[in-house]
């Protein structure tokens, strides 16, 4: 069926039929004057809005301030709008000439915005925001524009209860991980982003994992911050059900700025930021390192031959290269900076309104050779073809160029800098100690081979890993008002996202001989995602004219198709460092390409009913069919119902003066999720390794057909209340929710291999719950003309738990124990992202202390009455200076049976608080963000406090056990080369991650109106702000904001030395004409 053709026919039909329709005309007349000095106002806009707040008609006042407006519908509202004045509603009285007094809006601008918001309407549901009975929060981003954040996710951090945002990394161009009301499924949990009603791509399906990393995926809201007017977070399934199968993880609705009727406005903003890294973990210097290494050898072997690199041997050929005191972390760290230019033009008349913006951001990261350059442009155009016909175009283009550092064998340069031997020099010296001008990159060093232990400075400066993204979105919307209660809307949106990754690792950056496959290794990946999204909607409002009953709703038909293509080429051993692309066919080592397409159709309907403006019922029903399911399970039904009671409007409460508009609401809803891999359900066959046997072709089945694959469903219950007290001085909002994920989609579900296969690509099963509460408070303490003081606070708690695991589920994800290794498990009743390992109890003071004890605390003895020492598995007997692990089962052996639950990575409480003070032209605000009661596995400490290998260690190891009998609080175990068990995965590295952070603080000065007028600008503003200024935490790592990469749901919350988010100091200057 050719859809395009149908669209075309429909458009044509509409075009022919569009004619003016006879109306009852009402003519109103009036004059607009300034309330203060009673002067008439020329050029004021008199605008007629329909019941859904759409502009349907308008005129402007003449030189005398007079106007005449022929109204389309008498029940519509008419407002007077002039720049610099408050908007005033005109009483519609055709019999009288009304004098409308309007007030200058110098001070109360903020409040005006609030009113405007409360009248906006969600386009899919056709509900007034004010009447929404489901759980959602809308944030105005206007305030955040001067602060030194460059992404919307950063701006939202700590602002909304129940919304957990974590920066993926502090490197330029890296995104954030956003989790709404707890992790609710296995794998990626990112919410759906909807920009101006158009859902954005989810992570591209089935892309090539060899090139993508989590930062790649997490960069969700890629749009200039200044373009965003507001962000609304839909939290419960009653509201996300409207997005059906895509809404399982919550939805962020982003609204961009639009043109307004009036004079053309130019705005320019410049922001300059300085980014400073928090201090790194102090590491051993070269001399301390060598001392430690010698001790490690001494303890393990007693008799040893000192390797020449740590022997202080003047005759050693590389003596000068191994006698440095290099601080590798400092060498790869610098101060970063951001330059942000933003320019926008907006305006409009009766027929057209436009908003267009250009933004350019250049960010240099705090790790050497990391930068990101982003150019974006946004155009919103509204064209009123006639009173009933509106045509809208939105165009958005983003180009993002990110340069980063290459990781080698999964180790980034920061990780390397932590463990690299500090006695090695960056630059190579010759025999007599003269610099050669080359990086020091030996093929084998004391630590190991030159590609595993590379020179991080050399790799940062010579290697490169770049990403170029081109993203555009184009949306057309046609809206036709059929009559005064029926609107037809047709939307078509195109999106395309192209990503190109290129990386190159030249031979001189690493120590490897010419046969090593890493030599001059270049990789190129290109990935294109494209999508077409259409919506056909008939929306209605109360057809009956009865004030007591109000009915609205919509019927919508959605189609969505999104495709992907990618290709990856790698070549190694390119003949020259100047050939940085895999272009030489002979050297190509790997080529892969893939493409695919997912299609979805949905029908949805919703009805909202309101009785007496007090009793609200909202219902949603959506049916989705997606091509990733077989015919049997193709249709998924998602639904929601919310009930609201605006009790403040009840007569019996009307005597309570302090009570403002307040509501109680209850909701229930079901949303869902589909698998990312659209072709997972097919059984596939592939050629075998050699493709033939006895000269006959050979083909193997490689995956199992999924007949039972279905939607993961999320059912949520929500009870909430909104309270407005003391004339809008105090606003409180609270929610309690219960969310059940059932038929969880498990990717790569382990099967008994007796089936002939290792995994099922997807398996639905089990149950997970998230229970929690949220609280938001906003208080306007002082509200005078000159001074405005407000504080806000939000908190939320979420408890995650696996209620049920699928039958036959293999709960042991990894059983390996050993140094630095944690077994990975799933346990019913415990949350996702739990840590399991040994319990660490300190250090054995001396050899004779090492004994095994039974349950009652008595020392275990062998048959001859000798005390039995505690041992590790069957292989090692602990000695003095070794760590004490808790022998949980008291069998005298530390093994897998002694593994216990150690903590989990889900914060119990998250939230933030802040204050805003406006005094005359000064504006001060501060925002705090906190996450409490969660654990981090300090991966850096595992690497740098183990003292059992040749990695550099942190200064903490200076507190190590050194002599028999030494017993000090907080001492670390002894140094011991290749110790089998002195660094086992234990709670020694599981740390409380709790932190409270001053996320943003800002002072701004707005130039006086009069002064502005004199110098001919509309407004001018100077702001100083600082971001992540200080952090209160007991976490010993560099930063407790550890990336929550949930791609492996059994291993979340591990600090792996990603670049932490820096402190950012920003100066911002904004001018408007």
């Amino acid at each position, binding site marked *: *069926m050719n*859809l395009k053709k*149908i669209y075309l026919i429909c458009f044509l*039909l*509409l075009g022919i*039929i569009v004619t003016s*329709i006879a109306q009852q005309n009402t003519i109103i007349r009036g004059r607009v004057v300034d309330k203060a000095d009673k002067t008439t106002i020329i050029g004021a806009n008199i605008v007629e809005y329909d019941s859904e707040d759409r502009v349907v008609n308008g005129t402007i006042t003449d030189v005398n301030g007079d106007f005449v407006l022929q109204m389309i519908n008498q029940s519509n509202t008419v407002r007077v709008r002039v720049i610099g004045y408050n908007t005033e509603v005109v009483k519609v009285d055709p019999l009288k000439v009304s004098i409308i007094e309007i007030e200058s809006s110098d001070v109360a601008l903020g409040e005006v915005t609030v009113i405007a918001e409360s009248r906006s309407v969600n386009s899919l549901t056709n509900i007034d925001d004010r009447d929404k009975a489901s759980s959602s929060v809308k944030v105005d981003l206007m305030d955040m524009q001067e602060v030194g954040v460059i992404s919307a996710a950063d701006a939202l951090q700590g602002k909304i209860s129940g919304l957990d945002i974590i920066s993926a990394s502090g490197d330029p161009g890296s995104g954030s991980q956003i989790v709404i009301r707890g992790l609710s499924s296995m794998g990626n949990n990112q919410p759906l982003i909807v920009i101006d009603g158009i859902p954005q791509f989810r992570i591209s399906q089935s892309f090539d994992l060899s090139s993508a990393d989590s930062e790649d995926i997490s960069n969700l809201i890629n749009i200039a911050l200044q373009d965003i007017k507001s962000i609304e977070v839909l939290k419960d399934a009653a509201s996300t059900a409207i997005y059906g199968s895509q809404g399982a993880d919550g939805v962020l609705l982003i609204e961009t700025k639009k043109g307004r009727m009036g004079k053309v406005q130019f705005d320019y903003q410049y922001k300059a930021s300085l980014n400073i890294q928090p201090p790194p973990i102090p590491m051993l210097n070269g001399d301390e390192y060598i001392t430690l290494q010698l001790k490690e050898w001494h303890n393990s072997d007693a008799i040893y031959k000192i390797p020449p690199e740590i022997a202080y041997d003047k005759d050693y050929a590389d003596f000068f290269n191994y006698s440095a005191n290099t601080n590798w972390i400092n060498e790869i760290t610098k101060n970063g900076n951001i330059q942000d230019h933003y320019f926008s033009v907006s305006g409009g008349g009766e027929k057209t309104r436009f908003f267009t913006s250009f933004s350019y951001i250049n960010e240099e990261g705090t790790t050497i050779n990391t930068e990101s350059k982003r150019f974006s442009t946004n155009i919103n155009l509204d064209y009123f073809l006639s009173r009933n016909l509106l045509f809208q175009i939105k165009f958005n283009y983003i180009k993002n160029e990110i340069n980063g550092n290459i990781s080698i064998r999964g180790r980034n340069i920061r990780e390397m800098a932590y463990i690299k031997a500090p006695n090695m020099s960056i630059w190579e010296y010759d025999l007599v100690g003269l610099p050669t001008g080359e990086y020091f990159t030996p093929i084998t060093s004391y630590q190991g081979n030159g590609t595993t232990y590379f020179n991080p400075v050399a790799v940062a400066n010579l290697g490169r890993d770049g990403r170029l993204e081109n993203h555009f979105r184009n949306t057309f919307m046609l809206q*036709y008002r*059929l*009559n005064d209660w*029926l609107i*037809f809307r047709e939307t078509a949106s195109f999106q395309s996202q192209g990503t190109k990754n290129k990386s190159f690792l030249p031979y001189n950056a690493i120590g490897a001989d010419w046969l090593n496959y890493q030599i001059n290794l270049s990789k190129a990946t290109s990935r294109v995602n494209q999508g077409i999204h259409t919506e*056909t909607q*008939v929306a209605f409002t109360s057809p009956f004219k009865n004030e007591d009953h109000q009915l609205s709703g919509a019927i919508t038909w959605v*189609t969505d198709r999104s495709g992907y293509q990618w290709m990856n080429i790698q070549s190694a051993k390119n003949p020259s460092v100047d050939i940085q692309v895999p272009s030489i066919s002979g050297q190509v080592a790997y080529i892969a390409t893939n*493409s695919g*397409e*997912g*299609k*979805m*159709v949905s*029908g949805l309907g919703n009805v909202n009913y309101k009785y007496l403006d007090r009793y609200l019922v909202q219902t949603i029903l959506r049916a989705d*069919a*997606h*091509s990733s399911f077989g*015919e049997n399970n*193709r249709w998924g039904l998602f639904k929601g119902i919310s009930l609201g009671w605006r009790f403040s409007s009840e007569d019996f409460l009307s005597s309570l003066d302090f009570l403002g508009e307040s509501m109680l609401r209850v909701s229930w809803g079901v949303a869902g999720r589909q698998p990312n891999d*659209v072709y997972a359900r*097919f059984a*596939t*066959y*592939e050629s075998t*390794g*050699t493709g*033939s*046997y*006895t000269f*006959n*072709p*050979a*083909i*193997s*089945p490689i995956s*199992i*057909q*999924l*007949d*039972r694959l279905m939607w993961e469903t999320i059912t949520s219950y929500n009870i909430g209340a909104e309270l407005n007290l003391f004339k809008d001085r105090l606003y409180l909002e609270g929610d309690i929710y219960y969310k059940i994920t059932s038929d969880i989609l498990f990717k790569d579900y*382990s*099967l*008994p*291999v*007796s*089936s*002939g*296969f290792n995994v*099922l690509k997807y398996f639905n099963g089990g149950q997970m719950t998230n229970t929690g509460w949220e609280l938001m408070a906003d208080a306007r303490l002082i509200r005078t003309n000159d001074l405005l003081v407000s504080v806000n606070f939000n908190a939320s708690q979420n408890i995650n738990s696996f209620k049920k695991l699928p039958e036959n589920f*293999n709960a*042991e994800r990894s*059983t390996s124990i050993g140094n630095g290794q944690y077994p990975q498990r799933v346990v019913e009743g415990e949350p996702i992202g739990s840590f399991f390992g040994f319990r660490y109890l300190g250090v054995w003071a001396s050899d004779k202390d090492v004994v095994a004890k039974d349950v009652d605390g008595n020392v275990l003895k062998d048959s001859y009455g000798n005390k039995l020492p505690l041992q590790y598995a069957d292989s090692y007997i602990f000695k003095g200076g070794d760590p004490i692990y808790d022998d949980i089962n008291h069998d005298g052996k530390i093994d897998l049976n002694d593994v216990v639950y150690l903590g989990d990575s889900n914060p119990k409480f998250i939230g933030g608080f802040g204050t805003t003070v406006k005094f005359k032209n000064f504006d001060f605000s501060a925002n705090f963000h906190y996450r409490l009661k969660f654990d981090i596995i300090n991966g850096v400490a595992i690497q740098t406090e183990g003292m059992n290998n040749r990695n550099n260690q942190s200064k903490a190891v200076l507190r190590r056990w050194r002599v028999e009998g030494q017993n000090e609080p907080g001492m670390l175990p002894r140094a011991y080369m290749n110790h089998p068990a002195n660094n086992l995965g234990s709670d020694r590295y599981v740390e409380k991650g709790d932190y409270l952070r001053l996320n943003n603080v800002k002072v701004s000065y707005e130039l006086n109106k009069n002064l502005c007028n004199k110098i001919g600008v509309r407004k001018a503003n100077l702001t100083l702000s600082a971001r992540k200024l200080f952090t209160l935490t007991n976490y010993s790592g560099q930063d407790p904001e550890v990336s929550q990469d949930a791609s492996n749901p059994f291993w979340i919350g591990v600090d792996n030395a990603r670049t932490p988010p820096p402190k950012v100091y920003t100066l911002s200057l904004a001018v408007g004409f």
Partner: protein
Amino acid sequence: MKLKVKYSVILFILLMQISCNNWLESLPPNGLIREEFWQSKEDVEAVLMAAYELFASMDRTLFLQGELRGDLLFGGSNQPSRERSIAENNIYPDNNYCDWTPYYKIINHCNEVIKNAPLVQGIDNTFTDFRKQSLMAEAYFIRSLAYFYLVRIYNEVPLVLEPSETDNSDFYIPKSTESEVLNKVVIDLKQYREFAPSGGFSTIIENKGRASKPAFDALLADIALWRFEYDEVLEHVEKIENSGEIELMKGGEWFQIFNPGNSIEGIFEFQFDGNLNQRNGTFGLTQRFSNLYFPSQKATEMFGKENANELVRGENASIAKIGEDDFIIWKYVGQFPDGQSFRSGNDQYSCNWIVYRYADVLLMKAEALSQTGRYAEALAILNKTRERANLQPKNIVFNAAAFEDAIMEERALEFAYEGKRWFDLLRLGRRNNFSRKNKLIEVIISNVPSNQKRILAVKLTNPLGWYLPIYESEIERNKNLNQNQYYEF
């Protein structure tokens, strides 16, 4: 006018609904899926070939499973620790040597063929009954061979007879006893033997590399011998003798069994061809620089010029001396029986893995005859193989135990490093209600560090310890499986 707008909109929405189901059926643009497969006899054969190829690629495993716990192999310095643990009988379920994945992959391939071949016949008009039966016969053969290996290695295993086609299949199949598995296998083999192609392939590679009637007979004889059903053994071996296709190689040509392979003596050999990138694993395992596996002390005594008078099968043929006290296994790396000419180039990886050859089934027959008291006939066969090896005929006291030992020794000489030794020893240990199990235990503990010999000798009187445990992760994944009791502690 207004009405028309409304109607057209409603009509439009309805039209789209009708069209959607077709629109949603989107097939992957690249790759082969079930919906496009199983259309022709070529598809059936291709999956069958994949089963062969998978089995062939197990040659390294087959080598180790047949030799590691025996007494002819000695691990070098590069021997992986998991394999050393097995050899030293230090066996735990977490040793991934115990993973049976490849066997069940093969079994699933065969199950696919067995299930789908009849269905394909309904689609492909050129797929004759005869062809279908013969392809299915091959699939039954491979599946049976896989199960025969499995029961000899694990004793009790899940008997999976249906392919894992969809997620509705039962993946959690409990263990069946050895006799349940072998009963099923024997029924299949007997039923499909008549459909097996016999010399009917166009190339020698196919005749030796795919399941022929003699291959069925050899497998049936082997299973019968394992179950001590001696009359059955004789019956099946006679069929091979009467086929006229298979003969013993001459003494002077003995090494040609291995290079170039596919000799007249071969009954069933997994084919390798380095030129097609179909590389065997045995070369890498036994070549002189890999330091993985060498002949044991016992082997050098059996074959070495200094100790033995083996000329045809001895030093320079089964093993080669490459230095003072430095021997390597020669069958897979040598070009000629001279102990010097190494295989080179792609030829290095082209040595077949011989599953059955004529000498093997002849000695099976001798074993069966001697166990049923027909000593003279048994001796004649034994001496026939010795004669071929240029050795003096043997005289053996006419009792079963003496013959058992003599045949065991003869088999060690003839089939060293062909993955037979451990199973021969197992058979000996199991015979007559474990009456001679000490002989097997003696062999096992010869590989064990001296301080553990005593305790192991006691523990291994439990025959379950002769089999491998089920790999730990498989136990975790399949709750219907019970671990071999010997390993439960």
